[in-house]
């Protein structure tokens, strides 16, 4: 057993090293990988947002992709056709829209519990999928292409160029850090502790006089808004949106990321996003039927690792990634 101080020190070391690698990564000059890591960091934001629900509020949502999609579509629909959209207008709008949609969906789904919650979130996500897939408003299954990347212009000054992959990388990197810090602060606040209290014993929190419904609804809306941010960034990076962004595969994959990294750990959510994309890249390099391998991996993980991957992390306490934070 290592002394806690030593663990902390080692943890900090690994963390700083990981941060340094991420900061320096674009200098390696491999554009393909810079873009890939950008994509992973966007997924990490998405996974972080879901962790607030699954890991800290105890709400297993199988429909989180809906809000990712709303954020992405917000950019697609708000961007003017013949000129570039303004980042500083469309980004807050996308986050707000996703948050409002989550508030709306949450008002319904928070009323049900457990297994119902999983089914109902999935069903609502499918409803959003159909809204974009079937209506003229969402432009059908082809989705929307952005003719121009958004610009980050403030007055006459443009601090960075969102058509430049390296700039996008750093923009996403900073966004990920901010989301991480935001969640960290949120979870250590009275609000965050109340959420975790609800996760471990809802009845007790209720009898202590906490308005559990509203806490859950707030958590659901915040998670939705952050997922919207991830969706917006994804639309920004790839320059198009389509209904597949809201598909239930997307919801399933982000849950898988959480499991890979360890539910209820912010580091775990980020690590899980990296692990998921690494698996995906590895398997798709092997075969076009890579989903077979991915599915098989998931099944074996669940069967042979009772308690989930985080139980392995428990057994190897001295590793940084996936260690449950007792906050």
């Amino acid at each position, binding site marked *: 057993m290592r002394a806690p101080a030593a663990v902390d020190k080692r943890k900090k070391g690994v963390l700083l090293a990981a941060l340094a690698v991420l900061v320096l990564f674009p200098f390696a000059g491999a554009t393909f990988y810079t873009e890939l890591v950008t994509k992973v960091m966007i997924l990490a934001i998405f996974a972080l947002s879901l962790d607030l629900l*699954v890991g800290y509020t105890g709400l*297993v949502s*199988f429909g989180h992709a809906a809000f990712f999609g709303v954020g992405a579509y917000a950019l697609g629909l708000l961007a003017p056709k013949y000129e570039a959209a303004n980042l500083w207008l469309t980004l807050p709008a996308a986050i707000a829209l996703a948050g409002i949609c989550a508030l709306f969906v949450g008002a*319904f*789904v928070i*009323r*049900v519990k*457990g*297994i*119902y919650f*999983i*089914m*109902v979130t*999935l*069903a*609502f996500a*499918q*409803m959003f999928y*159909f*809204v974009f*897939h*079937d*209506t*003229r408003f969402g432009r059908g299954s082809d989705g929307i292409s952005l003719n121009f990347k958004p610009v980050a212009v403030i007055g006459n000054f443009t601090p960075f160029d969102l058509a430049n992959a390296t700039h996008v990388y750093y923009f996403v990197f900073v966004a990920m850090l901010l989301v991480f810090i935001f969640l960290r602060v949120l979870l250590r606040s009275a609000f965050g502790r109340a959420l975790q209290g609800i996760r471990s014993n809802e009845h007790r929190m209720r009898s202590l006089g906490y308005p559990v419904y509203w806490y859950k609804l707030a958590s659901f809306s915040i998670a939705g808004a952050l997922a919207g941010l991830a969706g917006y960034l994804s639309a920004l990076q790839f320059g198009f949106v389509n209904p597949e962004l809201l598909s*239930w595969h997307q919801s*399933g994959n982000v*849950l*898988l990321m959480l*499991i890979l990294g360890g*539910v209820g750990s912010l580091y775990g959510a980020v690590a899980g996003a990296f692990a998921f994309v690494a698996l995906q890249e590895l398997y798709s390099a092997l075969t076009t*039927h890579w*989903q*077979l391998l*991915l*599915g*098989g*991996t*998931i*099944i074996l*993980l*669940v*069967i042979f690792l*009772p308690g*989930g991957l985080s139980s392995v992390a428990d057994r190897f306490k001295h590793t940084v990634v996936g260690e449950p934070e007792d906050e």
Partner: protein
Amino acid sequence: MDIFSFLIQLLNGLQYGLLLFLVASGLTLIFGIMGIINLAHGSFYMIGAYMAFSLSTLTGNLFIAIVVGIVLSVILGVALEWALFSHLYKRDHLEQVLLTYGLILVFEELRSLIVGNDVHGVAVPAIFNWSIPLTESLSYPVYRLFMSAVCIVLAVLLYLLIAKTRIGMMIRAGSSNREMVQSLGLNINLVYRLVFALGVALAAFAGMLAAPVSSVYPGMGTGVLIICFVVVVIGGIGSIWGALVASLLIGLADTFGKVLIPQAAGVTVYLLMAAILLWRPEGLFRRV
């Protein structure tokens, strides 16, 4: 909408609802009795439809295909319960979701490897390949009536099985108290295996029955699964009776939704679900 088109839509809605019931009843039984949320349930519907396609191409007869298909799906159900689902009884919902999600990916890729990604049609059997004329221009295909009749017969049989037989008694007992059933010396694991196989067979049978009408295409399982979740949520988890009422409701809402408000065709059933959640969050009927 004149009386005959209304009648046609009504019959279509009921027929769709009855078909949904076959899938949803298995889903709700597996949850109500075994406590498992099975995302892969839609895959059994898909597998059934593809079996109908492959086996009827092979044998030249849909009915032979269906009989062989039922046998194969029972075997599949027993094997899956033995190999995978029996590990899930004591796990939390998140793990159940993940395993069954993994299973969907596996089934979809196997389908793509074995049969490919094309859309296939399955011929309506010759004896049912005619229509009842209603007016000069409107008629109703007999095969759809046959489907509805088969579904009704199955629903009655299911009711009799659960309400009147010894096995049904064990199933009901197992759903309310697993430990008690075991300590009374009954083999609850066998009951679970039977229920799971029954659920798989019902879903696969629905797929086989629907194949001539809906054709056979990738992703057909997912669509049915999510609609069946809506059915189960509306009907109340674990309630067969609720599943029947909710299936018919959804079948009618979807069919008339498509006719009356085609712009929002996909969304009608979800709006219905939202309304019912507001009214009765626990579903229309609780438990069996």
